[in-house]
């Protein structure tokens, strides 16, 4: 057997309170595209950080081309040929494309200073090979996500990487850009460069990966060729469940029944526009109805939810709740009217990390829980207690800091916060993204339950299966406008995809 390009043997790494990696071994061969999968908290990101010199392992050895190595920092790992493209594109937004691409390797003039003209020429040359033709002097932040990703990839490859680690590289890309990316990966493979590919998207994994390593709770649950592993078994390995059970239950916890809700709409958005992200978007949600919002990333799904919740200024259109028009651009007014948003980005827009679980739940409902500006502790206690029990929020106590909870429990805290406002309509933006399987099932079951109680739910999800099984009706967005609406038996994955692709053109 040939020497592995990169090999990890018996790696353990602990942090205060958790053992993130427990005796993990990993092998990467030349020209291999190796899938690294696992649920949140399985240890994927810790393993990557160990491989790239961000963390030092407590125990175990790293071998590069058969030689034991140890890196003090990412730079050392990079110099040894291991490059990483992180989930959020990790480049400097204010600097130009060229500066980002060639940072640390700028061409020099005779006097040893940076030769700007050659810097730009070189950057243009490199980017052309990745199918990007744009002014390389422009600041990176003014470019699209796909372009930024390609810059990151080009940068990684051009530092003579032998191993490229991609952490959820397609999460912000459009399909066309994904194709370009896969083309580039195929080229890398042909050059003998190895790729570690981290993703939750099974389709992609089976499309390009040769081998898979599954992590669970900090240990290796499985390692082997990917094409020999049925999808269901892969899911089962990731979830730590019996494959048979998964087959029987389907992957989501929705009841799967589609009801046709009647009655007046609880909330109705009419011709909501905001250049350039939204054009004449109209959506209505009736009591007891789960309306899915489908579409590609950047199609305007989050923007629609935010516009309805008053969190995004709009150029035109109205939002009415039970026939009453809601003041534009004021989340407070929307909440008073009974519309509450659970945002996609939990950390940035959801939890208040310095506060307790209790204070986080009560946050939006404070005006209802106080008299002339003075809060009633007793009323808060009652409210928090009932929601923690109902949503099965696992915390040491209501006074535990919310930042110490798992992602799933944080998500439930946010749901509780929304429900505590007495919301009649919930806008849930990717409510199950990035949370563990158990919590995912609970959240899905809760959505069903809330709808059954008469609440209206607007559900945004990139997970087609979740959308199809969870929603009664699906409004599909494309380029910031409504591309179609599916209801009843029309709600299938194929139909949603067909609607998205209807004009054959996904971008203007």
């Amino acid at each position, binding site marked *: 057997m040939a020497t592995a390009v990169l090999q990890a043997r018996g790696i353990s790494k602990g942090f205060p309170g958790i053992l993130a990696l427990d005796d993990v071994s990993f092998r990467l061969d030349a020209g291999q595209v190796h899938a690294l999968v696992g649920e949140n908290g399985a240890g994927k990101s810790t393993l990557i950080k160990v491989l790239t010199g961000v963390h030092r392992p407590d125990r175990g050895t790293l071998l590069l081309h058969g030689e034991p190595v140890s890196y003090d920092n990412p730079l050392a790992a990079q110099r040894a040929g291991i490059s990483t493209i992180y989930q959020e594109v990790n480049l400097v937004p204010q600097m130009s494309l060229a500066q980002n691409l060639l940072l640390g390797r700028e061409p020099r003039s005779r006097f040893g200073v940076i030769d700007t003209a050659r810097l730009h020429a070189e950057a243009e040359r490199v980017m052309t090979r990745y199918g990007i033709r744009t002014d390389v002097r422009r600041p990176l932040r003014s470019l*699209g996500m796909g372009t930024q990703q390609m810059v990151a990839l080009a940068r990684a490859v051009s530092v003579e990487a032998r191993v490229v680690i991609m952490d959820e590289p397609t999460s912000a890309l459009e399909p066309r850009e994904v194709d370009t990316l896969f083309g580039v990966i195929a080229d890398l493979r042909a050059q003998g460069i190895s790729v570690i590919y981290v993703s939750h998207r099974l389709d992609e994994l089976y499309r390009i990966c040769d081998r898979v390593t599954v992590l669970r709770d900090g240990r290796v649950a499985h390692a082997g060729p990917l094409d020999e592993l049925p999808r269901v078994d892969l899911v089962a390995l990731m979830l730590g469940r019996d494959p048979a059970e998964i087959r029987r239950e389907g992957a989501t916890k929705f009841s799967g029944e589609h009801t046709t809700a009647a009655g007046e709409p609880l909330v109705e958005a009419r011709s909501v526009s905001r250049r350039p992200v939204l054009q004449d978007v109209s959506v209505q949600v009736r009591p007891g109805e789960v309306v899915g919002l489908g579409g590609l990333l950047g199609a305007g799904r989050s923007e629609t939810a935010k516009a309805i919740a008053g969190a995004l200024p709009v150029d035109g259109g109205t939002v009415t709740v039970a026939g009453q028009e809601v003041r534009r651009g004021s989340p407070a007014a929307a909440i008073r009217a009974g519309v509450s948003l659970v945002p996609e980005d939990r950390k940035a827009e959801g939890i208040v990390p310095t506060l307790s679980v209790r204070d986080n739940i009560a946050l939006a409902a404070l005006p209802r829980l106080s008299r002339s500006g003075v809060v009633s502790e007793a009323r808060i206690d009652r409210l928090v207690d009932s929601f923690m029990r109902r949503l099965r929020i696992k915390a040491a106590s209501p006074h535990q800091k919310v930042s110490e909870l798992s992602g799933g429990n944080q998500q439930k805290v946010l749901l509780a916060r929304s429900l505590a406002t007495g919301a009649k309509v919930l806008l849930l933006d990717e409510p199950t993204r990035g949370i563990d399987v158990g919590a995912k099932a609970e959240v899905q079951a809760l959505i069903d339950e809330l709808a059954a109680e008469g609440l209206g739910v607007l559900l945004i999800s990139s997970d087609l299966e979740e959308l199809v099984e969870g929603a009664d009706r699906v409004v599909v967005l494309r380029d910031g406008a409504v591309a179609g609406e599916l209801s009843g038996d029309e709600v299938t994955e194929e139909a949603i995809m067909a609607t998205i692709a209807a004009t054959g053109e996904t971008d203007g």
Partner: protein
Amino acid sequence: MTTTIADADTGADARRGPGALRRERIGHLLQHHGALVVLAVTVLVGAATFDSFATPQNAANIVVSSSFLAIVAIGMTFVIISGGIDLSVGSSFVLAGVLAAYGSRYGLLVALLLPLAVCGTIGLIQGLIVARTGMAPFIVTLAGLLGMRGLMLAISDEGANTYLVRDDAFSALGQAAFLGLTVPVWITLALVLLGGVLLQRTGFGQNVFAIGGSEEAAVLMGVPVTRVKVLVYLISGLLAGLAGALNAARLSSGVTILGVGMELDVIAAVVIGGTLLTGGAGGLTGTMAGVLLLGVIQSLINQIGVLTSSFQQVVSGAFLALVVVTQRLLHRAQRLS
């Protein structure tokens, strides 16, 4: 490598329309050269209003008196672009003056090297604390401000003792003129050129921008963040020390009361010059325009005569507010586009 061609540009541009690029450029211009424009306008207005304003003598005065602030501002520009701030420069400036005057009794070399060594060391320590512990630069250098003021008071008998410069060669460094401008002005010019090259045309400069733009990204792109940060505070400490020493040479004494609050003027000049306090963008040309603008305003207020010099504070406070408000509005306009 075979090419896999995607469309030239991705969504962002298509959605933004043709006006966006132009707006981006105008914003860029305003950000980088706004101070220069305001400076030019102010000078023209001043020249038209006061006969004694646009004289070579007055211009020389402005340049000479601005040079010390300018030297400190060069260091501050590096610090601010790296995403930090150095509140200790005022104290450093005064401490250096006292040290230089004290050291001048042992000759020119000691008079120069003693303040540089002390202020450089303290800058280095501040840099190490900021870089290694992740404590907020503003609080670390605030402690530096207090500590250095304490140190200055301690060596000057609680401020009561003003050392006189005892070395003619050292005095000459602050007072001698060459082609009508004093030595500190020439030193300033040299430092601006050197600093400009360092900032725009070297790997170190690129790293400073990268750290200020996104420290996380900089780490992952292999930028030696700790080293760059330490160097940035070291540069700031050294330049504040140099400016203080030169000032002592000019005044022939280590004055203990000047320079209090100087950090505010320096920061004001840098920010007015278009360097973003959030880091990642800026430059020395703007900073110099900012420094000169403050100098010109001071001079104009002196011309008016009836106004007390505290009026200058009102004006620079207002200016600072105006600039940051404009920057914010520009930033917003760019976002919207």
